[in-house]
């Protein structure tokens, strides 16, 4: 490692500054923060770091940077802050290319000028395109649009050996060569640095509104969900929310949030049909600004109060058992909240309490392999992360993942020890 310079590789090299406390990850302050301005800069930084065996953590908006294991010393934080451009918007082809550091909300503001958007949501302000792909994080609209991995059609990467390569392209249909974009999805910056990404886009919906159905028991919600998913309604979200905080002191603790996006003429028909199907619930329909506020608040609901946040999957028809599990945990004094994709079987659990309570809750979930799969700890205290493997078992993917990691990052410099591989 070199000492802190203003520019790596001499006066023409990429700018870098000394790491400060505000750059710390789980309390570990990086030696330097590099802020490359071009793809070539990114590649050059990785090549030199690789030679020096310097540990590198890639940072986009920094909104999910604490996800992962606690780091060993970090030499370089590679910030994509200056790679923030929307490179192309081919609106007639419904595609767009953005640099890794471009903020999702900025990109969507630009795309909206042509009535389109990239349906990637983040509850975190400042989340970037690169971070969304690397974490494959998604929100309630995953129900209709999938995760970033499903929208990605091309990617440009900087490898640790300094090469810049691409996979995929600019067309929505393309099976030439390996789809390395998939490999980046969920890699958490452990395999290569994403420089830019190309996506297929979606027309902005002409109209939308959301039906919020509130239930005073889990069985009511499960029956309503079954009626909705068994119908031929096409909701854009099918979101379950179970929280003691929802209506303290009142009976209604379970909510189903169904967003409908359609033509102005058809929208009301969908909402009314859905309303008829969620029999027995207390229903509210929100639209316009109230609808946006509802979804913003829903997205943040899990993240705003304190507590560990865990992601887990289940078979969709097991939702009743999942809600019963949450109920049991609460009865045993663990403050647990669930927010997730009801029809897909994927959700976030917020678990409040001291470190041992939280650890016990994760262990409990992992022990219920009949119910939960892929239990991953996202947000947790450094103390807790040191006593639990945040990723859990990767199963058969562990060996293969390690082989791919070794092939692309033979020195093991990227997100060393923190990522899933």
């Amino acid at each position, binding site marked *: 490692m070199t000492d802190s310079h203003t520019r790596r590789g001499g006066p023409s090299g990429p700018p870098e500054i000394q790491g400060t406390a505000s750059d710390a990850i789980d309390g570990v302050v990086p030696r330097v923060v590099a802020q490359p301005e071009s793809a070539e800069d990114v590649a050059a930084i990785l090549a030199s770091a690789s030679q020096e065996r310097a540990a590198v953590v890639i940072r986009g908006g920094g909104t999910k940077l604490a996800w992962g294991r606690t780091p060993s010393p970090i030499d370089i934080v590679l910030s994509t802050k200056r790679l923030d451009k929307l490179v192309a918007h081919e609106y007639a082809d419904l595609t767009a290319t953005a640099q890794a550091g471009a903020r999702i909300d900025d990109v969507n503001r630009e795309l909206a000028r042509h009535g389109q958007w990239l349906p990637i949501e983040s509850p975190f302000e400042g989340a970037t395109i690169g971070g969304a792909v690397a974490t494959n994080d998604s929100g309630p609209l995953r129900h209709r649009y999938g995760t970033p991995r499903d929208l990605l059609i091309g990617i440009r990467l900087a490898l640790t050996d300094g090469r810049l390569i691409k996979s995929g392209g600019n067309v929505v249909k393309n099976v030439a060569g390996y789809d390395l974009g998939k490999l980046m*999805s969920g890699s958490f910056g452990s395999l290569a640095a994403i420089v830019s990404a190309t996506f297929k886009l979606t027309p902005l919906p002409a109209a939308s509104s959301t039906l919020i159905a509130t239930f005073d028991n889990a069985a009511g919600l499960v029956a309503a969900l079954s009626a909705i998913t068994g119908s031929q309604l096409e909701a854009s979200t099918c979101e379950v929310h179970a929280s003691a905080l929802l209506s303290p002191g009142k009976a209604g603790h379970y909510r189903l949030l169904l967003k409908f996006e359609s033509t102005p003429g058809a929208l009301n028909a969908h909402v009314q049909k859905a309303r008829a199907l969620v029999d027995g619930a207390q229903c509210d329909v929100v639209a316009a600004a109230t609808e946006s506020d509802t979804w913003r608040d829903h997205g943040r609901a899990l993240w705003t109060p304190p507590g560990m946040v865990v992601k887990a999957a289940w078979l969709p028809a097991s939702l009743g058992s999942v809600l019963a599990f949450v109920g049991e945990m609460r009865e045993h004094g663990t403050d647990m909240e669930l927010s997730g994709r009801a029809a897909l079987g994927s959700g976030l659990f917020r678990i409040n309490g001291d470190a041992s309570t939280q650890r016990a809750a994760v262990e409990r979930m992992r022990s219920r392999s009949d119910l939960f799969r892929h239990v991953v700890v996202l947000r947790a205290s450094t103390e807790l992360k040191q006593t639990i493997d945040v990723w859990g078992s990767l199963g058969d*993917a562990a060996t293969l993942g390690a082989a*791919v990691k070794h092939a692309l990052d033979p020195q093991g410099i990227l997100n060393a020890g923190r990522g899933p591989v």
Partner: protein
Amino acid sequence: MGVVDEHFIAELRRFSGHHDVLTDPLELLTYECDGLPHLHQKPAVVVLPSSADQVQAIVRLCHQHEVPFVARGHGSGLSGGALPIPGGVVIGLSRLNRVLDVDIPNRRVTVEPGVTNLEITRQVAPHGFYYAPDPSSQQVCSIGGNVAENSGGAHCLKYGFTVHHVLGIEAVLPNGDLVRLDSAIADAPGPDLLGVLIGSEGTLAVVTKVIVRILRRPESVQTLLAAYDSISAAGLAVSEIIAAGIIPAAVEIMDSLSIEAVEAAVHPNFPPADSILIVELDGPVAEVREQFAEVEAICRRAGATTVEVAQDEAHRARIWKGRKGAFASMGRVTPNYYVQDGVVPRTKLPEVLERIRQLEARCGLRIGNVFHAGDGNLHPLICYDEKIPGQSALAAEVGGEILSYCVEAGGSITGEHGVGADKAEYMPRMFSADDIDVMQLVRRAFDPKGICNPGKIFPTPRLCGEVPGPYRAHPMEKAGLGERF
């Protein structure tokens, strides 16, 4: 690379039935090629396992002896992806054809790789569900082949490809390990290994079980057929539909030669036209009704000479029979044909179609065109007569030229048929040596010995991305099929 000798075949027979190991030259004939018959190669041996355990034993044996192998589904592939490796083993998966689980409450079906694409829909249709990817060959193609090729189909514009519908697999890795992998759709943490395996054309593993998600049948489906005097007018209609913010379930265009062929073969009774545009919308009744009226108006504004709206399911089926029968019908208008599969950004379609028309005039071969207009996926059908000396080679050359047009327009050399053996040599037109080399690094991570369907996808003459180190003869070189320069 190892050699398939008597000892090797005896070993195969030990854990497969005697009749499941084929070495008779006549029996091997069936396996010499897939749906791309101009590429053919006799394998050393064909094995027809009936279980994942048998597949595992076969792959282990190949790994132990360093014998190359290729997995084969139902042989309907169009890029030579299942072309045997000289001196290698073909693992035919047609006997792994059981539907293992139909789980309607959890919206998923588990099948063995030899189950046909359409069989999945047949299984779940009585419950009101279907499996979305619908390659034109769906009646015969296997789900294992769909996973290998990341198959799409006419409806992938709205519903995506195989990779958007596979939740998990069981597969035998090239070292013989039997693994289970979940996809990102099923929230598997870490790099989406299954996402890269799907579409890897049988070069990373042999799939023995596939879990797919199924979708609820849309409440309403509306299909129209519009006839045009020119392909550009049909293309204009497509642009206007997309500009109106409508994503149809399918948008297909057929030109005059393909219309002539299907009329002769499957009699869809299309109206007289230079080009036919098929547009299908699906979804909730109220929405489809509103958008369909708009689509119909757009089609008329773009100059349609006739607009025919499917009045019932039989009518709709007839329209699709005409479209899906296009490739198979070409035999009515030409002794031989070569299907290409290029992609261009949709807005570049007029420009590329014009270049193809000029090429047709120049080369003297008729070129039909059937394409998925919504996603710019062209299927030029190059007509030739193999009995006329030089025409086969000319057809291949013309196909390559068309792919160059696609790449120059910012597109791809394949949208759904795969690179296979057919188009490996064109990969450098789309990807740099570094791009290809890094893909090869990934391949080696799965298959360090290079025995899993070698010679496919990646160009062999330059031998990009081979294991660094001392010179080792490539199997293609050994077989006299490639040389180093």
